[in-house]
């Protein structure tokens, strides 16, 4: 269906794709994997007409193609579902689906009735139950993702490209999505599937292509390859163990919380965090994990909650008070509410701790901050090792390392990390995990929210499973209570 031959692409002097060749057949799901920066997105964008290649050929459906615009690719039958949702919350599902391809009445105006019907047809074909007249904003993220897929295939796509479609979905929603993908495969569509979650690939993909640093590493049948091999191909080396060892010793309680509620999102959550352990928060998206932690620091106004830090009851009126007491929350939304993108690495590291770099007259000393930043750059292996580099120019993994450095500079007593490795490449991932473990060992209470099942299992000593805004189970790793089944079992309704 699609034959990509020796496609190269450079941004300015930086070669991001180097003579990549691969093909996708009709009726197959072809996975595309690689670390961040391996060139996956660039490749997808070239196939989808968003970027133009420098050299090489692309043959689609028997014809050589050269798309100058996403619309041309769409017209040819190539449809891309991007990682970020591209729907407009204020418009209906049907209008979103038929944007730029509106059905018209004789007067040239939009024929809403026809569009609604057509949308319903697509949903029926795919087997999704969504009201075409609902406003997109009223749907869950998972539903919106399905609308995206429906939108993509509604153009009579022959090739469907899904860029990390599962990153913000719950397990149940992922199942739903995979069911749809399987259906489409049966209908003869070619599907390119990009994901960081290897377990998913094995579940859904027929073949997998690995990219590394813009080069093609290999294409293989998924049935003929093991997870470890894939990882080796992606990073070019064997990762000894994927996760750091569990806690050596678990000490006394650092922080505890009771009666934590946020009206409409969290109800009556209570937990303790002990020295030396990593507490994992598992659950489906929307189960209230992030909401609970934001309510804890009162970033969103909570309705109740009592907190004890190192045995003393404390008040937390706003995030700045939490910070002052050493309670740090790192957001899952790294770019929107974690980092200051156009500022330097050093400025970001010192954002929570400006006062540390001021003398007793309140005079700020940038040199002190730079010195401190260089320590973090070394410790966290931030690349490029330049404290004046702007954070927006860093890769996702390095951005995340800057975010952790910012938190560490506070000398936290309790670190709450929301999705520490979302959108992060494998190398950075294990470094982040190692640092979190070190932190826990040094006596800091560590709480990790992760939607990635292996991560939350591999990293945590204890797991709280969230469901419906509350804690539905507490699983101890030491006691062997932790398993995927146990988590899912407590995360969903039966």
């Amino acid at each position: 269906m699609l034959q990509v031959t020796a496609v190269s692409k450079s941004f300015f002097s930086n070669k991001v794709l180097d003579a990549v060749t691969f093909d996708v057949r009709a009726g197959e799901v072809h996975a595309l994997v690689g670390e961040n920066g391996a060139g996956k997105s660039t490749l997808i964008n070239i196939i989808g007409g968003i970027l133009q290649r420098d050299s090489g050929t692309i043959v689609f459906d028997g014809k050589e193609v050269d798309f100058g615009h996403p619309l041309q690719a769409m017209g040819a039958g190539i449809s891309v579902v991007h990682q970020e949702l591209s729907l407009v919350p204020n418009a209906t599902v049907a209008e979103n689906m038929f944007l730029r391809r509106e059905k018209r009445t004789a007067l040239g105006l939009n024929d809403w009735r026809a569009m609604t019907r057509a949308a319903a047809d697509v949903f029926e074909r795919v087997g999704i139950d969504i009201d075409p007249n609902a406003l997109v904003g009223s749907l869950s993220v998972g539903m919106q993702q399905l609308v995206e897929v429906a939108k993509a295939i509604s153009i009579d796509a022959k090739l469907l490209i899904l860029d990390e479609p599962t990153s913000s979905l719950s397990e149940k929603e992922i199942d739903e999505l995979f069911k749809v993908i399987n259906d489409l495969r049966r209908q003869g569509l070619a599907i390119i599937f990009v994901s960081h979650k290897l377990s998913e690939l094995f579940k859904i993909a027929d073949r997998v292509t690995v990219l590394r640093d813009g080069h093609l590493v290999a294409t293989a049948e998924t049935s003929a390859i093991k997870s470890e091999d894939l990882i080796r191909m992606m990073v070019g080396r064997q990762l000894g163990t994927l996760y750091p060892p569990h806690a050596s010793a678990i000490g006394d309680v650092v922080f505890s919380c009771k009666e934590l509620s946020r009206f409409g999102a969290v109800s009556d959550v209570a937990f303790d965090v002990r020295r030396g352990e990593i507490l994992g928060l598992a659950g489906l998206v929307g189960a209230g994990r992030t909401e609970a932690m934001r309510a804890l620091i009162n970033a969103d106004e909570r309705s109740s909650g009592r907190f004890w830090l190192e045995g003393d009851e404390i008040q937390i009126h706003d995030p700045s008070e939490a910070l002052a007491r050493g309670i740090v929350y790192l957001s899952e939304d790294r770019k929107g509410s974690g980092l200051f993108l156009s500022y330097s690495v050093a400025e970001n590291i010192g954002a929570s701790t400006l006062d540390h770099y001021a003398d007793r007259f309140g005079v700020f000393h940038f040199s002190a901050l730079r010195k401190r930043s260089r320590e973090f750059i070394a410790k966290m292996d931030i690349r490029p090792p330049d404290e004046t580099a702007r954070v927006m120019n860093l890769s996702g993994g390095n951005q995340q390392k800057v975010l952790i450095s910012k938190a560490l500079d506070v000398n936290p007593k309790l670190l709450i990390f929301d999705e520490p490795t979302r959108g992060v490449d494998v190398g950075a991932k294990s470094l982040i995990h190692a640092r979190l473990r070190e932190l826990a060992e040094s006596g800091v209470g560590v709480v990790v929210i992760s939607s990635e099942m292996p991560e939350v299992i591999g990293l945590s000593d204890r797991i709280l499973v969230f469901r419906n805004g509350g804690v539905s189970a507490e699983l101890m790793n030491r006691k062997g209570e932790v398993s995927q089944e146990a988590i899912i079992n407590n995360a969903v309704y039966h």
Partner: protein
Amino acid sequence: MMTHAANSPDATKPTGRRFAALSSRQFLLVLINVAIFLVLTILRPDAFPSWTNLKAVLSLMSYDLLIAIAMTIVLIVRGIDLSVGSVLALASVTMALLLRADASVPVALLAGLGVALLCGLTNGLLVGVVGILPFLVTLGMMSVARGIATVLTTGQYISFPNAPAWFTLFGRYELQIPNGSGFYGVPVTLIIGLTLVVVTSLLFSRWTALRSFFFVGESTEAARLSGIKVTRLTVAAYLLAALFVWFTAVLLTSANKIGYANYGIGAEMRALAAAVVGGASLAGGAGNIFGTFLGVLMLALIGNGFVMLNGNPNWQQASVGIVLLVAVGVDALRTYRDRR
């Protein structure tokens, strides 16, 4: 790409290289100012470079300068203050009316300050606490403050002949600096203006409280989660802006010896133009007091040059707009080039 970005210090952002060298934008602005200066000196060697003329240019731009600093401060926190000119008028009118009614100078000054800060506080609370767009809030305030000033005065000049002489004199006072043969008279307004530029500039780079403004403007939510008191700082920014507006009102009222409801009409446009030219951005998180100073200076030199070179007075008013468009254009081209 990465290394390039690391090597392009942009001092409009607090990357810490501000004192290492001027940013390229400010360097460009200095060059433009020098170029205008040289051209005018060559074309009008008799009139332009005299101390009297330069003194007048520099001291008379102080009013615009202080307002532009106020604008820069709110731009840094991703705000905008369209009410600066009106609040200036209202503060001036308040002080003048009280002085005419034989209130003591401190009382009048404090009342003026109170009125200005009240306007600033209202702006700040509506923006920072209630969460309304700054553009709309200050647009409303612009109308209200000017309206009240007009209602209070019915448009008359408010003079205060009985006020203590020192108040009516200090706005025009000149310090005599010996220069060998005679004296340079250096106006107090100029000294105050330059001092405030230096002080605010230093505070913004070296005082943590003001440095935090940049974080608020760059990403409000990230700043909040980083423990920065966003609401408080937003309100503080509008209060600080109001303070600068009050400085202007005091100087202007003293210098002209009248309070007037039509002071500062169009001042917000000039201030915005100067601040943007100087490196501030409507997207927040950027802004540089020294850049703003250079922007105001440029507008002042252009205005002075216009008269010096007998420009057609009809075209004078188009100059601010053209400067703004050209500055934005040059900046866009520069950013575009940087991106490559």
